[in-house]
């Protein structure tokens, strides 16, 4: 098994931490992982992305030009990464703020209205976990138990009280995702 993912959106949406939790989930099931962020001018505001690789074998290049899955959270990222999903791959996007929707027919396109769901939940911070839930529904490469274990590892202990809320957000994402 090898899954190469790009997660892209605005700074502040939790793109990097979603990638980190996914990577930790991979470690929990004894996989090799890499997490490579954009750390350029992006982290000073604007777009932000991270590529995550989970693999049963040693990972060579952490730098990718094509992805099995693209998780897209703003228009700029959709414009940049839609063409870089491998044929037969998956593109998951949040339609919030999107004016030009995905057009490719040779990939599986999924929609998660995560901004709306987070608003309904009354917790904007749950946004990235809703998106993660959507992804795990479409590609169950990491089990819920391992994701939660990953959360425990990546969150400082003082925040462990937030884990049930994160679990709930992941479940919401799993239910709300639409496969187009």
């Amino acid at each position, binding site marked *: 098994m090898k899954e190469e993912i790009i997660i892209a959106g605005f700074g502040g949406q939790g793109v990097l931490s979603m990638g980190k939790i996914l990577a*930790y989930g991979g*470690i929990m099931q004894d996989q090799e992982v*890499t*997490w490579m962020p954009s750390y*350029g001018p992006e982290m000073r505001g604007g777009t932000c992305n991270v590529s995550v690789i989970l693999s049963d074998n040693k990972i060579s290049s952490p*730098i990718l*030009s094509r992805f099995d899955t693209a998780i897209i959270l703003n228009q700029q990222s959709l414009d940049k990464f839609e063409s870089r999903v491998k044929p037969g791959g998956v593109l998951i996007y949040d339609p919030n703020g999107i004016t030009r929707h995905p057009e490719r027919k040779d990939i599986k396109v999924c929609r998660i209205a995560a901004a709306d769901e987070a608003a309904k939940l009354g917790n904007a911070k749950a946004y990235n976990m809703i998106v993660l839930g959507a992804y795990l529904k479409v590609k169950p490469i990491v089990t819920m138990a391992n994701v939660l274990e990953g959360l425990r*590892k990546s969150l400082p202990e003082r925040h462990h009280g937030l884990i049930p809320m994160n679990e709930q957000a992941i479940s919401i994402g799993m239910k709300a995702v639409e496969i187009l």
Partner: protein
Amino acid sequence: MAEKILMKGNEAIAYAAINCGCDGYFGYPITPQSEVMETLMQEKPWETTGMVVLQAESETSSINMVYGGASCGKKVMTSSSSPGISLMCEGLSYLAGCELPCLVVNVMRGGPGLGTIQPSQSDYFQATKGGGHGDYRTIVLAPASVQDMYDFVDLSFELAFKYRNPVMILGDGIVGQMMEKVELSPAKPRRTDEEVRTLCDSWATLGKPASRPGNIVTSLALDADIMERHNIHLQNKYATIESEEVRYETYKTEDAEYLIVAFGCMSRISENVVELAREDGIKLGVLRPITLYPYPEKALDALVPRMKSIMSVELNSGQMVEDVRRIAAGRVPVHFYGRQGGVIPSPEEIYEAFVKTIKK
């Protein structure tokens, strides 16, 4: 099984320093390596192992604090990125001249000048051929993974004290910023004063006992004969390092007819290029120098006659390729592919460039 932790390369440097009994870190923040000092400040090792962590007022100051700590036989280090390392080069020359052990980590970014904060390998010349003035050498290790970043800290201190010489970990923005899982090593306690005295009494400035003359740490010798003797002594030491400390890895070179030579992150990207080539029936392999100084001369020399051509792949305008050409010595064509200024090529892009070279 040891615990495996997800961390950034820069964080790995910090955790490894605490874990291997480092006595002091002196640094000044610069992207893309600021997490080294941030992690150390967060971990507060002065409360546990007694390790000193100090933010100096500049890189010049950091390297001179390292100079002072090393003179006292302490395990000391600094880290920076390209422009900061340039500022440290005067100090590095003095440390090498005085034969002092220390670790300098360079998480390279694109240059020249202030350049960019994106990854680069454009300090190969600076790290391996000098940087500072005078006939000196720095042992240079090139990490390709976060585990390497972690493991090379302890290894660097071992080499630094074995040869009383500065050691540099020459990483780049990719290995610094990337997260991977790291298997932690068993902790080494910091050396006690007594251990430092046993190990370093012949040269370190530890206070003069009645039993011996005082130790003087200096790189100054106004008498040309004395200076030449010291230089010859240094060159003999470097010759020992060149015969004892070469480290490298190969990937699918057993049956290879073509070779990529690449270090650090580029060696990993090149492994993917090998897979692309082999899908097309082209027998390509990779030689990855782990020590850039001492360079794996013999390993490359032995591979050259079996190859139809060689390509050096680097994140610069062609620096290591000069060494590859020197060793290949005209026996086979040596090509170069590189991107500069912080641009990272994909495996596909490198493969396309490689295919052009073999069709020529």
